[in-house]
């Protein structure tokens, strides 16, 4: 089995278009969720985390120029622009090329170009563009990836599953490098759906807090480049050392009552990495701020014997970014490990989950070697992945 290293990354969110911009914002406690009034998204004002459209267009034109492309920006959808800018940004400083047959391309999304179904967007693009494979092929063709994209669409855990499959394929040597990119945009489709569930909070969401009353939605994209070739990397790169998924087998839209199944995935990931609870530096959990999800996570953390481990959720900063969430939150987890930084779980004040999990209430530096990243979603799916520092 080979070691799988993180070689590069990018985050596009309301907090910026680079990992650095996003990390700086998180470090300074900046919240990307703002009250948005946009009738094409939702009839009344709602706290959302939106990517700035002006900057997006500017950045995209720059990528077209840098890549020597003559395509019109109008021939790409908003989400395709997210993916292209994010992948370009992550790959730019690296000697890893998409055209290499050793490079795997994994794409994660839940709804792809779903806004093309809206009446107002009809006829702007070929109707095939709503198929996830067609959108992924547009991104593949842009960069000239040697292989067709491996597309994961597994609800809120899509981003983690995309990282997990890349980790496994690299580990056994099937590929040498992998570009894993996850993204989703905010649309009337998604907002109306969550609203019908009455699961949206009227204020920026508050994971694990006693007063939490639902989730906030966001959009964005993230990319993580993985490699087994350590010679390409400087310093002491972070590795992926374990991963697992599981299913609640209980309910399609509500979490497990016991948290056993998420704890199963956590324990399996730790077992694969040969780590014990005392080895885990912090948990970056899913933390959507719905009453039941956060309650279930606290049960899982207790069952996995991880009550002593600091926990945060990043949803309080940029909401739930769906297919992007697993990737962008993992990028933050990796950088937090590199920077030895426990990032405050925004929105948390008063403990409000059944088990006494150690929610991070202040951003502080702390020596640590590993992060357990988790996610859970509709369909009863759970995922866990372990990031570890390479001791120099």
């Amino acid at each position, binding site marked *: 089995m080979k070691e799988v290293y993180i070689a590069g990354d990018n985050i596009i969110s309301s907090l910026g278009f680079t990992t650095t911009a996003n990390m700086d914002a998180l470090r300074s406690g900046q919240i990307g969720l703002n009250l948005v009034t946009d009738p094409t998204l939702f009839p009344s004002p709602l706290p959302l985390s939106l990517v700035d459209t002006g900057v997006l267009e500017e950045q995209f034109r720059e990528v077209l120029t840098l890549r020597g492309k003559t395509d019109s920006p109008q021939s790409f959808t908003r989400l395709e622009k997210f993916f292209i800018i994010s992948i370009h940004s992550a790959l730019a400083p690296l000697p890893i090329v998409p055209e290499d047959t050793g490079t795997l391309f994994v794409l994660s999304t839940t709804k792809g170009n779903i806004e093309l179904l809206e009446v107002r967007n009809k006829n702007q693009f070929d109707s095939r563009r709503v198929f996830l494979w067609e959108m992924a092929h547009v991104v593949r063709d842009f960069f000239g990836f040697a292989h067709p994209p491996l597309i*994961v*669409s597994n609800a809120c855990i899509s981003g983690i599953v995309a990282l997990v499959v890349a980790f*496994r394929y690299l580990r056994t040597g099937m590929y040498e490098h992998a570009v894993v990119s996850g993204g989703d945009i905010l649309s009337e489709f998604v907002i109306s759906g969550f609203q019908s569930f009455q699961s949206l909070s009227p204020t920026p969401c508050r994971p694990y807090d006693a007063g939490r009353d639902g989730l906030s939605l966001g959009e964005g994209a993230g990319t993580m480049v993985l490699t087994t070739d350590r010679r390409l990397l400087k310093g002491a790169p972070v590795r992926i050392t374990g991963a697992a998924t*599981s*299913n609640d087998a209980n309910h399609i839209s509500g979490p497990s009552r016991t948290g056993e199944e998420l704890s199963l995935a956590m324990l399996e990931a730790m077992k694969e990495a040969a780590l014990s609870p005392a080895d885990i530096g912090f948990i970056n959990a899913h933390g959507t701020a719905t009453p039941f999800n956060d309650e279930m996570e606290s049960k899982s953390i207790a069952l996995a014997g991880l009550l002593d481990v600091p926990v945060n959720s990043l949803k309080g900063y940029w909401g739930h970014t769906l297919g992007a969430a697993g990737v962008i939150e993992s990028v933050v987890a990796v950088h937090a490990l590199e920077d030895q930084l426990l990032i405050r779980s925004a929105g948390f004040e008063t403990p409000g989950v059944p088990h006494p999990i150690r929610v991070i209430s202040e951003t502080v530096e702390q020596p640590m070697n590993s992060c357990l990243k988790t996610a859970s979603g509709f*369909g*009863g799916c759970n995922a866990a992945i372990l990031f570890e520092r390479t001791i120099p």
Partner: protein
Amino acid sequence: MSQSITAYSQIRSSCIKVNGSIEYCDENFITFAEFIKPFFKHLNLGYPKFYKMDPLSKLGFIAAELVFRKINIALYDRNRVGIVLANASSSLDTDLAHQRTIDNRSQYFPSPSVFVYTLPNIMIGEICIRHQLKGENGFLISEKFDSLLLFNYVNELFQHHRVDACLTGWVDLLQERFEALLLFVEPTTKAPAEEPLKVSIPFSAEAMDTLYKIT
């Protein structure tokens, strides 16, 4: 370590097959709902939740049900039975239904019971609930049936000792066009004496292609 396909189901055109044998055929249907309802009733499962599912989940549920009639799931550690499915259309059939509920502001009635099915892996959830499977799960998208995509994913699960057995295959449905091929895969050495209804086909991308073609 090698794996075998020990049970499989196929649904396409107008026929439903299990381990290669025809279970049911009906040429005279227009919609998927008309095709599947009599067969569901014939199975006599007493599972009213079925009626609430979207068409894609119904298709996957029935295909899985047929596989588990050949496998005694009580003999497996259900935390270690995985499900890996793929299709081309994701949940687009139901996405269109949800979109219709919000297209017109004066008739705006998004329903959580529709919206929840606008994710393709809900089908995995329905199958997991039915058979209490709690292991690895993944939903993949490809333009066409891609045996290698599924084979590689499932093969890695076995190589990394993440599963003892895995349900895998293709379940695609969009506007009355539908096809399903589901396979139960497990190590070739798994004692067959207690489960004589099983078949044994070496698990490979080629074998999957063959079964897909004769679906």
